[in-house]
């Protein structure tokens, strides 16, 4: 056994590979003594990882990049050698906003361009009538949720900084906030969308896989300096987590996975809700309407565990588009280098089949993503807050 490792996580379904790795004994089988520490905020996870209270963490992919670039906080270079999940978020709207969008929609209700255009008509009508702007909740300034909401609505002509209010809400407060009318919609990971639907206070409008075919969501984050000093430990952690991801993707292991995640000291919600998420079979409307998608959350299949530098470049491009940082070739290189496909492949002793290299992201709007020409790519988008 190595010296004890402390790994921080936020109680969300996409921490599954870490939780299963520890609770099924896969980390122990690799000679690792891991204690998982449940946290209440991304700020805490980031800070405790930064100062070494955590050796590794379940972290929002954009936070790993922001931390490496020193955006919003202290600069601490992070290595992300394992992608804990692709996709997994959803956009949930209040029953009233759902009705308003459906009244304006021209096209398929799962087509994000149709809903975004409908949203822009709802927003315009509210402005004409002098109503307060709509409020959308998301989880963190440097989050996929923030960028996914912005990407979607901007494609329909809604400026997320001018036409609506976009506010940070901790995931456990999302459902109460939509119920009380504090927010009209939110973008969050599982299980919170399903819980809003079960309580009858929200309708799932989109799975984020409608917006982006592949979106890096949470990564296993390690301080780069620590990773450099402990290559064997990092490799063992990658192997254990990969074994867990493969375990979770076996349909006949889903019930057991859901039971492990349902433990109060882990995610602590109903096993049934967890299983729906893992199966990609979600109740989207309070009347019981079910929507199935094989792309809702990818834990290990389709090479999901392999960190893709093009994904990191896309996230960096969003930071530039929305004015969180200015564009620089050096920063782009740093961002890409956070996603350590090399460590992932070396630990497993084989390369996992990467995604289609032509466009790793698969966004519903705009030109195919070019990870080497961020400025050219962003020029195609009218709405944004790029710093000069």
């Amino acid at each position, binding site marked *: 056994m190595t010296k004890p490792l402390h790994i921080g996580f936020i109680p969300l379904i996409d921490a599954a590979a870490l939780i299963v790795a520890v609770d099924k004994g896969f980390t122990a089988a690799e000679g690792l003594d891991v204690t998982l520490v449940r946290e209440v905020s991304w700020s805490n996870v980031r800070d405790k990882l930064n100062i070494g209270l955590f050796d590794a963490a379940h972290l929002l992919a954009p936070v790993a990049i922001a931390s490496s670039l020193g955006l919003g906080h202290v600069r601490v270079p992070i290595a992300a050698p394992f992608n804990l999940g692709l996709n997994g978020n959803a956009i949930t709207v209040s029953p009233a906003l759902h009705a308003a969008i459906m009244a304006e929609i021209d096209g398929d209700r799962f087509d994000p361009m149709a809903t975004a255009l409908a949203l822009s008509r709802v927003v315009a009508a509210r402005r004409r009538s002098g109503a307060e702007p709509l409020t959308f909740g998301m989880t963190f300034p440097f989050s996929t949720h923030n960028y996914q909401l912005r990407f979607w609505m901007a494609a329909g002509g809604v400026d997320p900084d001018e036409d609506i209010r976009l506010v940070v809400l*901790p995931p456990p407060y999302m459902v109460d906030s939509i119920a*009380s009318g504090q927010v009209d919609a939110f973008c969050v990971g599982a299980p919170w969308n399903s819980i809003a639907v079960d309580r009858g206070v929200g309708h799932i409008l989109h799975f984020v896989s409608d917006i982006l075919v592949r979106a890096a969501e949470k990564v296993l984050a390690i301080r780069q300096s620590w990773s450099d000093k402990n290559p064997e430990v990092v490799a063992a952690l990658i192997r254990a987590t990969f074994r867990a991801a493969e375990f979770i993707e076996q349909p006949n292991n889903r019930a057991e996975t859901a039971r492990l995640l349902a433990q109060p000291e882990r995610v602590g919600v109903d096993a049934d809700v967890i299983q729906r998420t893992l199966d990609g079979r979600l109740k989207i409307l309070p009347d019981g309407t079910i929507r199935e998608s094989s792309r809702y959350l990818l834990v290990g299949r389709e090479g999901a565990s392999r960190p893709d530098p093009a994904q990191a470049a896309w996230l960096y491009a969003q930071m530039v588009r929305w004015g969180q940082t200015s564009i620089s070739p050096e920063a782009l290189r740093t961002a890409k280098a956070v996603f350590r496909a090399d460590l992932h492949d070396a630990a497993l002793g084989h390369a996992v089949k990467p995604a289609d290299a032509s466009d790793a992201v698969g966004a519903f709007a705009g030109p195919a993503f070019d990870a080497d020409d961020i400025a050219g790519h962003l020029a195609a988008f009218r709405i944004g807050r790029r710093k000069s």
Partner: protein
Amino acid sequence: MGAESSPKIVIVDESPIRAAILQEGLREAGFTDVVHISEMQSLLSRIYALDPDVIVIDLENPSRDVLEQMFQVSRAVRRPIAMFVDQSDAASIQASVDAGVSAYIVDGLKKERLKPILDLCISRFNAFSRLQDELDRAKSALEDRKVIERAKGILMKLKGLTEDEAYVLLRSTAMREKKKIGEIAQSILTASELLR
């Protein structure tokens, strides 16, 4: 504070006792303009209404992420804030995370003026957890004493011992097995439950 007025400090904490301890400490140190927010609903708009210079929040609070939003310039954020981090002062970051507190500084306030506030928060947070620990220890000591009393009673009845003899037996057994007297007493209670 000299010519400068006392900065306005907002404490975001769901624990009323800890907030009171902190508030008192800040007042004693001459920071008179202190407001406590215990309700997390509409946190951001309440903070804007108060328009503080410094925000202090406990690390057990999920709403810390809400404050991070205030680093960004956007329609929702009128006056940007930053987390108080002196990059050269790793010890201070460590001390604040260990104590479980974090401080945010609103645009305009000089960093030198925040340092004494943060140091005070760290020491008061630490004082609060020491108090909490003492309380927990006192509780468990009381529990132990009750258990030992009952175990002595059982030994006296079953083995015909005096109270002193019963205690000596407990203590010598604990020493021999390298356990606490409370643990031995508890196993006697458990055994007597089972054998009843």
